[in-house]
């Protein structure tokens, strides 16, 4: 009964979405207030029915109703409750339902919360949002119904992939989807603006909070996924340039560019058609990600069960949504130029460089991700893979100038800045950062030049960001109380920007430290084996069998000593899940801000080796790796603080009373 309610609710949501696709936009064209206002109720209705469907699926999972195919294939009666709940979005069908739920939630939020948006724009935006709903609801109902039944019911389920039975991964998809799907609102706003044929500062101001919110969620989602890969997969890395990682990273890069170009459109009326294009591109790349993950187009460790029919359906969706919006763009954009002249050295100029680099970087990642497909098509079936060597060689050199400009940007004033004035302010910071790079070079020696350069640039970004913040509140120039008063007077968006930029600097320290100065040992250990790594002495004391709720594990014991003093004991595990017939590694990590000592237990020795109780052990030391998570948290927090700025909440454009040159850059 419960699954049928869910199924029926989905059909009702589709019916409402169909109505909303037509009525409000038609109402906007013929100025019919009632028709425009209908969007509010149909948006709320859609979220209501989709939530019922979602709750129905979750209920089926919690009750272990194995007559539902989706539950049967992705759950097991012995699975812990948390993972029964998270199993709801562990499969293709369930995650699609979550996707649609988030889509409708965002639509309803625009309908209810965006009171400052012009009625006509809002009606058009919500209709466009409903088109996306229709696309995905029909996709789900026709090709991927999560409520399909099976008869007779089997005794027990086939269990969720054990790798996915993890708290980090229970949270990762919802956050990622909040990001991906959040950009749908921005897309709908952009398409509505194209239909209207008008983009102005007000439009940019409506779009910015949604962009920022989606960006915050996407940042958190990617960071969480990366963290999960780091501690769960047992490979000791946090980013692998896997196609599915790349497709989440591309919307992030584009979204970051959009976040900054929308500022220029809002404040200076420039970059209009570029901002619209970025809005369309960001969501298009999110859709592309959905397509790649679910169609089996590329080989990836993440791919869902593959079905060409589904692939064709999503490709059709992509053709309509992306093709349609680009066609609209080609038609309307040429008439939208003008406004906001500026000198090359100015805030606008800095943000232009930011946008160009981010766009080039996105293009590079896109090209690298799809190159295997292009190559295969051109050579008639030959294959190759594009991995970290390409991405590291192509992507990192692009990021270095970006980081440099990022430190400089907030010092630049709108329209025109004087080179001399900026130089005077950053001179000390530049010297300090150079000094830091040289000291690191002297102290560490033997690393690549690029490593030291990156460290110096991270230091530059951190110091320049703090210097700019200190400059704004005139820290040290005026009494402390006065500086605090000034800090409180700054818009929250300014604090948010400072925190986020500093967060990226902190994360760069982590990226560089853990990839350039990593030590790694893979070796065969028997009880009593001693390993020397990065100043630690690690002794393998043996492995024993332990039993978990739905798995059996081999647990190794490693005694860690440094300078002849016992520090701690690590227990890496290798778990076998009998129902799913698969094995996972649980790495053991000694985590400090200086670095992580990371151990993971790989295969046991085969009998032929003649050594009983011997294991393959992988042990790594990753310096500064936790700076990545700290920096990511700062990025997210910075975004949230900026989001709470009253300027983004209150509609009317308020002229600030503070000095214009201290306007926030976010």
């Amino acid at each position, binding site marked *: 009964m419960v699954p049928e309610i869910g199924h029926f609710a989905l059909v009702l949501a589709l019916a409402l979405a169909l109505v909303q696709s037509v009525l409000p936009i038609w109402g906007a064209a013929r100025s019919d207030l009632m028709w425009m206002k209908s969007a509010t109720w149909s948006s709320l209705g859609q979220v209501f029915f989709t939530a019922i469907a979602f709750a129905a699926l979750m209920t089926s999972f919690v009750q272990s109703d194995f007559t539902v195919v989706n539950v049967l294939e992705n759950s097991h009666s012995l699975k812990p409750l948390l993972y029964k709940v998270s199993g709801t979005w562990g499969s293709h069908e369930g995650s699609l339902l979550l996707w649609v739920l988030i889509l409708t939630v965002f639509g309803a939020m625009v309908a209810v919360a965006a009171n400052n948006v012009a009625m006509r724009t809002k009606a058009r935006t919500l209709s466009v949002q409903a088109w996306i709903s229709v696309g995905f609801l029909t996709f789900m109902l026709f090709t991927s119904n999560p409520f399909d039944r099976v008869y007779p019911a089997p005794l027990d389920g086939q269990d969720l992939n054990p790798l996915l039975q993890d708290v980090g991964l229970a949270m990762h998809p919802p956050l990622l989807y909040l990001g991906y799907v959040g950009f749908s609102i921005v897309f709908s706003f952009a398409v509505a603006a194209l239909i209207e044929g008008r983009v102005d500062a007000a439009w940019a101001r409506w779009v910015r909070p949604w962009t920022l919110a989606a960006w915050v969620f996407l940042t958190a989602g990617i960071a969480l996924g990366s963290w999960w890969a780091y501690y769960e997969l047992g490979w000791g890395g946090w980013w692998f340039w896997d196609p599915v990682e790349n497709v989440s990273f591309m919307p992030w890069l584009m979204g970051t560019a959009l976040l900054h170009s929308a500022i220029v459109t809002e404040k200076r009326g420039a970059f209009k*058609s570029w901002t619209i294009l970025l809005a369309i591109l960001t969501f298009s790349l999110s859709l592309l990600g959905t397509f790649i993950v679910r*169609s089996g187009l590329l080989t990836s460790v993440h791919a869902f069960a593959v079905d060409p029919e589904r692939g*064709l359906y999503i490709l059709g969706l*992509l053709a309509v949504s992306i093709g349609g919006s680009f066609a609209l*763009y080609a038609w309307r954009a040429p008439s939208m130029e003008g406004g906001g002249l500026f000198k090359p050295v100015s805030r606008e100029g800095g943000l232009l460089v930011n946008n160009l680099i981010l766009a080039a970087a996105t293009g590079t990642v896109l090209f690298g991700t799809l190159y295997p497909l292009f190559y295969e098509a051109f050579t008639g079936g030959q294959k190759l893979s594009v991995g970290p060597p390409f991405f590291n060689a192509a992507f990192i050199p692009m990021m270095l100038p970006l980081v440099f400009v990022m430190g400089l940007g907030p010092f630049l004033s709108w329209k025109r800045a004087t080179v001399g004035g900026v130089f005077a302010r950053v001179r000390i910071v530049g010297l300090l950062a150079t000094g830091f790079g040289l000291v690191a070079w002297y102290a560490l020696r033997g690393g690549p030049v690029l490593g030291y350069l990156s460290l110096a640039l991270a230091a530059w970004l951190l110091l320049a960001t703090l210097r700019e913040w200190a400059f704004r509140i005139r820290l040290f120039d005026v009494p402390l109380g006065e500086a605090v008063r000034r800090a409180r007077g700054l818009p929250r968006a300014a604090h948010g920007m400072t925190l986020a930029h500093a967060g990226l600097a902190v994360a760069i320290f982590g990226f560089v430290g853990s990839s350039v100065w990593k030590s790694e040992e893979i070796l065969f250990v028997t009880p009593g084996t001693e390993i020397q790594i990065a100043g630690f002495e690690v002794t393998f004391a043996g492995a024993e069998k332990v039993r978990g709720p739905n798995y059996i594990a081999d647990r190794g014991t490693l005694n860690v000593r440094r300078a002849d003093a016992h520090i701690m004991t690590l227990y890496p595990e290798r778990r076998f899940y009998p129902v799913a017939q698969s094995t996972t590694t649980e790495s053991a990590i000694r985590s400090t801000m200086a670095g992580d000592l990371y151990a993971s237990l790989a295969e046991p020795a*085969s009998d032929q080796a003649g050594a009983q109780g011997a294991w393959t052990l992988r042990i790594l030391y990753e310096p500064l790796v936790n700076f990545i998570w700290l920096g990511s948290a700062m990025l997210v927090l910075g975004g949230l603080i900026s989001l709470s700025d009253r300027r983004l909440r209150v509609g009317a454009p308020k002229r600030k009373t503070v000095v214009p040159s201290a306007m926030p850059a976010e």
Partner: protein
Amino acid sequence: MVRFLAFSPLLIAVVFGAFFLWGLNPDRDPNAIPSVLISQPAPEFTLEPVEGLDVPGLSRADLLATDRPVIVNVFASWCVPCRAEHAVLTALAEDEGQILYGINYKDKPKDAVRWLNELGNPYQRIGSDLTGRAGIEWGISGVPETFIVGAGGVVLYRYVGPVVGDEAVATFRAALNAAGALSNGAGS
């Protein structure tokens, strides 16, 4: 110009879409890794023996000279799955009398010797591919990979990844059988 620029996203999207449509062709398996070497003579390569090991090196000439199928396994001491695969290969070589040659890929000789002393050496010849040059000639995508080379040095089969587990071993044995290796083998 502006009009052309405004059209370019649409044009690019159409080109991408065409590739995607091609990529969805149901006959295409994105996970299959074909080898251009199949049915071709083994590629040109000459590898020195692993220093510190009394096993001869491996070159193309050795493969051309063979009159029965041989297994060529690409392995390395730093490769974790190779350890698991080692037992399977040892069984094929020692219990069933298959000829097993090795290419020791991007490995320090010292580590390779330690690894083989630890696990035992089932290989009749091992070439030390310090630079990875021979790996390029063979077109390997990673380690381990295992080839079956027929009489006269013709490459018959390629297996990517470790031959470990019932399914993989059965697939590999079927290929050995097709190559006529098992009927010659002492153990079958």
